[in-house]
């Protein structure tokens, strides 16, 4: 207990330091790298808070994918001089004002956090009571797929909308074509080697994380991220081309998860008497939830991979 508390006392300053570096450093590249380090430290913090599902999501999505997105954009915008650098460091008044604002807000939130009641009112009891009827062992999966499944449905649509938004920025002549720039890698190079070696392992790990999600930390979002990462690696090592935006198979893969979720939701109207409900009969809920999760994993993997790939820029060859 005390040793772990010592860990907290080291971890929290480290997190804050990484955050300050990410905000304060002049070098943009260093800022993004600090942000990724920050995300990984934050994942450890989530483990300390007993939220392993969140830790997985933070490491894979918050640090990993967000970092890749920022690094990729930075590479394309260049680290050279531009008007942001030409303007020089922000003025002193601005910095002081911003610091005062930040400090005031942080102090207000801190006061509110310290004033929260003990013991905390919470729903773990209600979740634990309702979980066995679903046949699940992981309460977080129960909340995501059943109790608050409506949130998750909307969230899956949000993810897809972000992709549509990115696609909407394509130059008109490139519509229907391939997203992103062409990647080049030496066919005998170490990257191509890794790109051939890792995908089988990654796919196994991804499917495993999806499968254990029902009972232990893991699930559709974490698994989808791993699968997307495998695919991004294969694209980066120039082993495969991303699919063309006009491809019907791609579009079906993108909508499959949310569409399946909606369909099961509508079925719930008849079978369970409530939209997004699962039939009360024993043994029905878990297979349905796994079905929805499988669809979501596929769609999330495809969507995340294409989010990173970016706007369509090349006509399909």
């Amino acid at each position: 207990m005390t040793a772990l508390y010592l860990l907290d006392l080291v971890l929290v300053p480290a997190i804050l330091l990484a955050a300050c570096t990410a905000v304060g450093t002049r070098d943009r590249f260093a800022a993004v790298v600090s942000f990724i380090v920050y995300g990984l430290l934050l994942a450890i913090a989530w483990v300390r808070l007993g939220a392993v599902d969140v830790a997985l999501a933070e490491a894979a999505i918050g640090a990993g994918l967000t970092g890749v997105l920022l690094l990729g954009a930075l590479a394309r915008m260049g680290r050279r001089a531009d008007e942001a650098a030409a303007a020089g460091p922000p003025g002193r008044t601005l910095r002081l004002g911003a610091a005062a604002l930040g400090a005031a807000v942080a102090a207000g939130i801190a006061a509110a956090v310290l004033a929260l009641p003990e013991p905390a009112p919470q729903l773990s009891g209600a979740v634990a009571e309702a979980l066995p009827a679903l046949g699940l062992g992981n309460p977080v999966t129960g909340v995501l797929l059943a109790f608050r499944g409506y949130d998750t449905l909307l969230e899956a649509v949000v993810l897809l909308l972000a992709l549509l938004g990115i696609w909407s920025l394509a130059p008109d002549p490139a519509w229907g074509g391939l997203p992103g720039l062409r990647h080049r890698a030496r066919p005998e190079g170490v990257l191509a080697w890794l790109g051939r070696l890792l995908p089988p392992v990654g796919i196994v790990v991804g499917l495993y994380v999806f499968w254990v999600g029902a009972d232990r930390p893991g699930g559709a979002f974490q698994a989808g991220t791993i699968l997307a990462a495998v695919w991004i690696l294969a694209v980066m090592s120039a082993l495969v081309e991303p699919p063309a935006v006009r491809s019907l198979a791609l579009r079906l893969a993108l909508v499959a998860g949310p569409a399946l979720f909606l369909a099961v939701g509508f079925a719930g109207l008849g079978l369970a008497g409530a939209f997004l409900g699962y039939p009360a009969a024993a043994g029905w809920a878990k297979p349905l939830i796994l079905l929805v999760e499988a669809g979501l994993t596929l769609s999330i993997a495809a969507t995340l991979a294409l989010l990173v790939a970016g706007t369509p820029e090349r006509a399909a060859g």
Partner: protein
Amino acid sequence: MSAWDLFTLAAVAAGAFFFLAGTVGLLRFPDVFTRLHALTKADNLGLGLIVLGLLPRAEGVFGALKLVAVWLLALLAAATVAQLVARLARREGDAGA
């Protein structure tokens, strides 16, 4: 405290020492190549020792296999990334940055 516990303690402590050494190298060495050297070599060994130390405490054979897989994947990633970073540094010629 059993012998296995002592083994775990010793191995993890040794692993942590190598991690520390790697980090000191990262901070103190002069250029990209020597930093990479410190980071990958020391950290890979450190992680290996920590995994070794945790093996006796793993949940069954499957758990132990997972731990070893973690080490192997980290080795693979470190080796590849070190290669890529080194090549980029050589091409851009700013190895001293």
